[in-house]
């Protein structure tokens, strides 16, 4: 994460104004429990949130456990908190240096609320997407009496550099547990559960939601004080439900189809914006990696494998280009170059690499899903599908209640919507798997270390590292032996029979110098 830019943001809107509103809410809604630890926590909150925005505790839709959410009653938007912490060893603390107080207050008032980041989800994991607009500091211990004590002049050192970033959350996810209550009828197919459900009114659902959150009345208060929320919730509910008009009232019932459609829309948006890098690396590039099969290949191909190897892990597109390259060197290169140019929104160099490696004339295979003899190049479609699937599985696992998750997956496999027909992908992955198994078998036959490295599975690297280590130790040992002085060597021959070790005379005392 880029602390530099953050810190600039931070000084722009000093904690003072934000924390003052958090003190406002403190007496009003006495229910907010004091944060469990004393050290202040650093929050990045949207600065278009009104002063009535508050932190409420609701049930996490996926786990069912209470979780903190940030709610802005006027805009009716929900935010979830994502904790962004550096790796343990990266940096240990954070120095908060507020700017001059009044200037900060003025600036914050002037800061126009730019609500450009309307996407409700998807940017949770990737800190890069988070548009930090305003920051706030809530010193847990102090803000009860006054505002932030330290906010005036002196800086503050946070021992825990974790940041909490409020990212927009679709309230639909929060109501989903109420919409899809746990199937008491333990019908095996998850899809069946909603079929038995009744059409209910919004109020019923909201009551159910309130019941679920009965441990505290945050939500109740919220809905009571801001009718806008109820409307917003209803809108979201209607997006995921079949409706029936019963007199003057609309009745709703959860429709898995609609839920899937919603999820799909979100997932598509996520893919369009680009998956977070780590996600892309782990779930897309890794999965699509083609094992290296043949040992010898023509010169240009070999050289390219080296190049691809170097690029690996640098950028998503680079990684793909690498696969293309490997592909081109393994078998019949088709329209790799075309696909890679398509994909490569960045890293022109990588693309050039890929296109130059098409050594044999490109066969004229059609552009759609490659037939079985066509290469394993992940076509655009495949990568897109995989990204989509990754995004979907991320959404379902982090926001859907478990039983609904099953229903959604079942729905996706049985009656896939055309946009998310994962069958080509599954077929492709199955082929990759078989290839991988083959490659592994081949590899185990050969002891060519270099090739093993090129294949680059973690296991082999481990083994290689182990060998390396052993070799190093042996060398070290030899070195030591050589370094031994002659006298020491002679002394080794001395007869020490009958001589006790000195440690039997002298204790292993701490220090006697």
């Amino acid at each position, binding site marked *: 994460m880029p602390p530099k830019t953050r810190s600039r943001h931070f000084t722009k809107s000093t904690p003072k104004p934000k924390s003052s509103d958090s003190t406002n809410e403190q007496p009003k809604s006495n229910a907010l429990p004091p944060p469990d630890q004393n050290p202040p926590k650093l929050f990045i909150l949207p600065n278009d949130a009104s002063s009535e925005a508050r932190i409420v505790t609701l049930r996490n839709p996926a786990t069912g456990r209470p979780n903190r959410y940030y709610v802005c009653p006027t805009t009716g938007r929900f935010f979830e908190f994502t904790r962004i912490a550096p790796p343990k060893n990266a940096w240990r603390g954070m120095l908060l240096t507020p700017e001059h107080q009044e200037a900060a207050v003025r600036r914050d008032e002037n800061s126009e609320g730019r609500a450009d980041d309307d996407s409700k989800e998807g940017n949770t994991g990737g800190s890069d997407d988070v548009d930090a607009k305003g920051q706030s500091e809530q010193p847990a211990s102090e803000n009860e009496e006054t505002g932030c004590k330290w906010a005036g002049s002196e800086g503050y050192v946070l021992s825990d550099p974790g940041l909490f970033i409020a990212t927009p959350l679709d309230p639909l996810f929060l109501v989903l547990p109420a919409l899809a209550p746990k199937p008491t009828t333990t019908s095996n197919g998850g899809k069946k559960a909603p079929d038995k459900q009744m059409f209910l009114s919004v109020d019923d659902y909201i009551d159910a939601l309130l019941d679920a959150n009965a441990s505290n009345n945050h939500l109740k208060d919220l809905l009571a004080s801001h009718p806008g929320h109820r409307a917003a919730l209803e809108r979201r509910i209607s997006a995921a439900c079949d409706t029936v008009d019963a007199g003057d009232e609309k009745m709703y019932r959860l429709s898995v189809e609609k839920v899937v459609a919603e999820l799909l829309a979100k997932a598509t948006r996520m893919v369009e914006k680009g998956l977070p890098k780590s996600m892309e690396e782990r779930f897309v590039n890794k999965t699509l990696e083609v094992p290296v099969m043949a040992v010898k290949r023509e010169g240009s191909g070999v050289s390219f494998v080296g190049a691809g190897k170097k690029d690996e892990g640098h950028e998503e597109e680079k990684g793909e280009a690498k696969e293309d390259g490997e592909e081109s060197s393994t078998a019949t290169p088709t329209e790799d170059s075309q696909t890679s140019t398509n994909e490569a929104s960045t890293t022109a160099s990588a693309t050039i690499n890929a296109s130059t490696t098409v050594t044999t004339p490109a066969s004229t295979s059609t552009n759609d899903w490659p037939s079985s003899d066509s290469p394993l190049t992940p076509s655009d479609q495949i990568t897109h599908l995989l990204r989509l699937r990754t995004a979907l599985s991320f959404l379902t696992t982090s926001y859907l209640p478990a039983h609904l998750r099953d229903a959604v997956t079942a729905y996706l496999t049985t009656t896939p919507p055309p946009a998310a027909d994962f069958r080509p992908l599954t077929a492709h992955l199955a082929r990759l798997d078989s290839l991988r198994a083959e490659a592994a078998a081949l590899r185990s036959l050969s002891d060519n270390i270099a090739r093993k490295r090129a294949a680059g599975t973690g296991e082999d690297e481990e083994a290689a590292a182990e060998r390396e280590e052993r070799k190093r130790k042996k060398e070290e040992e030899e070195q030591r032996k050589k370094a031994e*002085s002659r006298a020491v060597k*002679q002394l080794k021959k001395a007869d020490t029979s009958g001589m006790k070790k000195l440690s039997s005379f002298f204790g292993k005392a701490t220090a006697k110098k």
Partner: protein
Amino acid sequence: MLEARLEQANLLKKVVDSITNLVQDCNFDCNDSGIALQAMDNSHVALVAMMLRSDAFSPFRCDRNIALGINLTSLTKVLRCAQNEDILTLKAEDAPDVVNLVFESAESDRLSEYDIKLMDIDQEHLGIPDTEYAASITMPSAEFQRITRDLLALSESVSIECTKEGVKFSCQGDIGSGSVTLRSHTNVDNEDRNVSIDLSEPVSLMFSLKYLSNFCKASGLSSRVKLSLSNEVPLLVEYALPSNSFLRFYLAPKIGDED
């Protein structure tokens, strides 16, 4: 930060020379009282303990405790580059990767500088109690060296018998046997020639001559050597160094094995 200036490189050269026969690498523990060293030989039957007090240096500065893990062979190599009369300065950072040695020639303006890479040495540190020895013999270090050398020709081990009459070094080998007896002796002309025996009870112990002759490599450091013995306790061979510093060797006695 460590900075220790030694007027004569000779001292360190000799100390290291005599230790290098016993151990390969060891930690030089530096603190504000000076530079200390404790190491055992490979078979852990002999121990060398060295203490160079801060007074031996001028100036001596050590801000915090530093352990300099040095390979003694490397150190010997570098110390060979120093003239005996050179002024030697040891320098090291607080968390050092290298130790820096500077040799200044007093006569010429020659200044040579060497860095030795340090190593992490995991050594067990033994606590050596202050022992009241039953017998302690002080004699010229050359004399002790000669005895060990002579007897080593016959056997690998020597029995040191200390009685009121004197101290008798005797050995029994394949070709025969031999013994050297020293009596308390005061030389009027040269105090260094004195042999003094301080005895509270008779002692008789067996030691490995190879180790003893190894210790004797330190003879150049001091004209006098002090042997301290008690039954069933390691022998202490001590060479006194200037400014209350010392170089001590401990050797486990041979027990129960009569050969």
